[in-house]
């Protein structure tokens, strides 16, 4: 393969052109699984400097690419074949779409003349994925491949990031097809007349927002994943400190603002802590920064932060007014907007420009003291408390450890009890709530940063969905660590059945010892061990952290009936937050809105995962 700079035209077939285009986009690692229709593209991979990680299921390829993208901010790349492989990667695409993860997914497709004939392993991939991708395309000519790749990376990474799928029929990448050859040129121009995301905010909108910020007495910065996507953590810290504005970080924004910072109130939402939830309810100004008023944050929308004016900052215009009509709408990249706000504010006198928030801060500290996150340690002879395991894990790992999680109780406990002091250390499935996310996502993150420690916190339900990717981790030498919170149940569903279905437990029991997770881990080339006693927790974590040559699975035998608190029942108002049992007697009447101490009135709607 000659270099592009030579005068000879570079004659490539479609498959070679695809891989060459990925190289020119700076792709270092991709995750995939070959098969019939994509076979021709796998041949040039042998000669490419791109590292290809062979997963054990196409869903794993997609989540690994997501993990890579979350950790690095660079687009994750995955490649699979047509038909069942394409449908297997639908879940990661939907996940990436809801969490705005930049992803480029390449799928093989049957040869063009066979499209529409119900050919072997044919499915309408672009049709199926249309509503769960930011964009998708079916390429019909080999010479259009470089343009498609260029556009895909541009669309995936600019504006509100998201997944882009390129469907490639087999005949246009086939080395035996003379029509699949062309003179390769990587297009310098992109031609997207309808696509121009607004990055820089309108100055007038910024001024209006700043005017509201200056006079607010009980403001809260409601920080979402958009701050991380815009690499805006530094600007956020400056803004919060300048204005002495308390911050809540949503599930997608954990790490965007240091948990150890005195202005950080923690996570809001259904399982957010009392102060974060109540601060939003009582605030007079919510500055929504790259957040989308998700139902898990707002509770019943009509009762959400009733006295607050809203400044909504988001790069996606369609988020403005979708759930809650903002008083000031600022369309733009979060970092660009915060930097513009900072310029405006420093011209207006810096911290002097704001109202005094000391009373507000005092009230918040009062709630924090009264309603900290809490749990009761397990009794001797009992299985472990998951919170205790997670606190020990947090304290036993370096501060820059990357933590991924699956979906359910263990996810909420990790978000609650970990101390996220660095951006891009927390990787989870927020919007779609995809069980089985953590192990493949951890593989993606560890592939990006081989020298960082990467822990996947997983549940026993999740582990049984994607645990086989530990074979990938072993063979590809991507030594992630797994903290398996084994409580023998689909814990979050169990919690809902206990609280809202009269303890009628339907189809949620998984068993503590079937499968034998230690044997399974060993069979997959990992070190596996089991922890059953509280005093073994720290020793086990230290032992796991010393192993760097292969993946480790530490199974923590946990109590089955431990519940995640606080909790706002689905469809309920955030004012009806249920605190931990030990805080309830104290809570009655003491809190400004009187948090409910019982769950009798809690109506459940929606779903648990």
């Amino acid at each position: 393969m000659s270099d592009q700079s030579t005068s000879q035209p570079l004659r490539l077939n479609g498959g070679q052109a695809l891989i060459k285009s990925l190289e020119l986009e700076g792709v270092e690692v991709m995750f995939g699984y070959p098969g019939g229709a994509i076979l021709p593209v796998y041949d040039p991979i042998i000669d490419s400097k791109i590292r290809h990680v062979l997963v054990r299921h196409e869903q794993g390829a997609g989540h690994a690419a997501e993990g890579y993208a979350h950790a690095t901010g660079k687009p994750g790349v995955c490649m699979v074949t047509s038909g069942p492989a394409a449908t297997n990667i639908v879940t990661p695409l939907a996940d990436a779409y809801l969490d705005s993860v930049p992803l480029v997914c390449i799928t093989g497709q049957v040869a063009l003349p066979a499209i529409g004939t119900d050919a072997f392993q044919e499915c309408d991939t672009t049709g199926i994925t249309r509503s769960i991708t930011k964009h998708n395309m079916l390429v019909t000519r080999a010479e259009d491949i470089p343009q498609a790749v260029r556009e895909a990376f541009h669309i995936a990474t600019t504006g509100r990031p998201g997944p882009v799928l390129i469907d490639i029929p087999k005949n246009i990448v086939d080395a035996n097809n003379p029509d699949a050859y062309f003179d390769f040129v990587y297009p310098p121009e992109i031609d997207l007349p309808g696509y121009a995301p607004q990055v820089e905010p309108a100055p007038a909108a910024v001024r209006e927002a700043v005017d509201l910020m200056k006079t607010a007495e009980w403001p809260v910065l409601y920080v979402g994943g958009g701050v991380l996507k815009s690499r805006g953590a530094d600007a956020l810290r400056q803004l919060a400190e300048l204005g002495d504005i308390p911050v809540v970080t949503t599930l997608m924004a954990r790490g965007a603002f240091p948990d150890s910072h005195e202005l950080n109130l923690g996570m809001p939402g259904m399982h957010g802590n009392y102060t974060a939830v109540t601060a939003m309810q009582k605030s007079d100004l919510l500055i929504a920064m790259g957040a989308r008023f998700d139902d898990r944050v707002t509770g019943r929308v009509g009762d959400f932060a009733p006295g607050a004016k809203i400044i909504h900052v988001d790069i996606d215009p369609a988020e403005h007014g979708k759930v809650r009509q903002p008083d000031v709408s600022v369309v733009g990249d979060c970092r660009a907007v915060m930097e513009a706000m900072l310029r405006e504010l420093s011209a207006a006198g810096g911290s002097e420009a704001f109202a005094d928030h000391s009373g507000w801060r005092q009230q918040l500290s009062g709630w924090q003291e009264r309603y900290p996150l809490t749990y009761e340690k397990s009794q001797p002879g009992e299985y472990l408390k998951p919170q205790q395991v997670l606190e020990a894990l947090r304290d036993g790992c370096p501060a820059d450890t990357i933590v991924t999680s699956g979906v359910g109780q263990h996810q909420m406990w990790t978000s609650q009890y970990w101390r996220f002091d660095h951006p891009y250390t927390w990787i989870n499935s927020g919007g779609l709530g995809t069980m089985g996310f953590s192990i493949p996502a951890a593989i993606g993150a560890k592939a990006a940063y081989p020298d960082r420690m990467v822990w996947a916190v997983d549940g026993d339900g999740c582990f049984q969905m994607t645990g086989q990717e530990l074979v990938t981790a072993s063979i590809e030498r991507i030594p992630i660590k797994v903290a398996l919170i084994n409580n023998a149940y689909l814990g979050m569903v169990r919690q809902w059945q206990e609280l809202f279905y009269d303890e009628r437990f339907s189809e949620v029991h998984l068993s503590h010892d079937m499968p034998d997770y230690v044997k399974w881990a060993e069979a997959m080339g990992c070190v596996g061990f089991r922890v059953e006693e509280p005093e073994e927790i720290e020793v086990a974590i230290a032992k796991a952290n010393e192993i760097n040559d292969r993946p480790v699975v530490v199974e923590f035998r946990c109590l089955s009936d431990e519940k995640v608190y606080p909790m706002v029942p689905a469809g309920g108002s955030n004012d009806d937050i249920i605190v931990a049992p030990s805080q309830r007697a104290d809570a009655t009447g003491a809190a400004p809105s009187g948090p409910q101490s019982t769950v009798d009135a809690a109506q459940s709607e929606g779903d648990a995962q």
Partner: protein
Amino acid sequence: MTAPMTENRELPHRTIVVLVENKAGVLARVADLFARRGYNIISLAVAPTNDDRFSRLTIVVDVESAPLDQIVKQLFKLINVVEIAELAPEAAVERELLLATVRAPQESRSQIIELVDVFEGKILAVSPDHLTVSLDGRPSKLDDFEALLEGYSIVELQRSGRIALPKIGRDVPRLRAVTEPS
């Protein structure tokens, strides 16, 4: 020439003209978006423009199912959507075509022909018992004609959905996803 979206016009139906790149699957993307977000389409007409890189969709949307503002913003998220404009009835020339086959026995045949004449429609086909008629014009004129035809026995009736262009010399507000504060 941009303007903020005009709201509160209290019309349940609004006409928007969407310029899209003429690429495979674009119509499906637009239709999918309406279906997925629960927006109702009253009528839809689509054809290439005089510039073959683009097609124009004339969509009559039901703004009771969702605010026009959200519909427009979601449409703009489609990469192939280039431009959207709203055509208010007073600023637009609107046309639609109606075809109908009606039973026309001896005793009512002349009445139907008279009705078609009054509306300046055309008779396209004749058989001993049936007539196929056509009428083009403003949608409201077609509504009136259709209502009168219902007095006879309609076998089949098909309307094209409206197409529209701005009146000459009228500024048509181009809708934007982002509106500047006033």
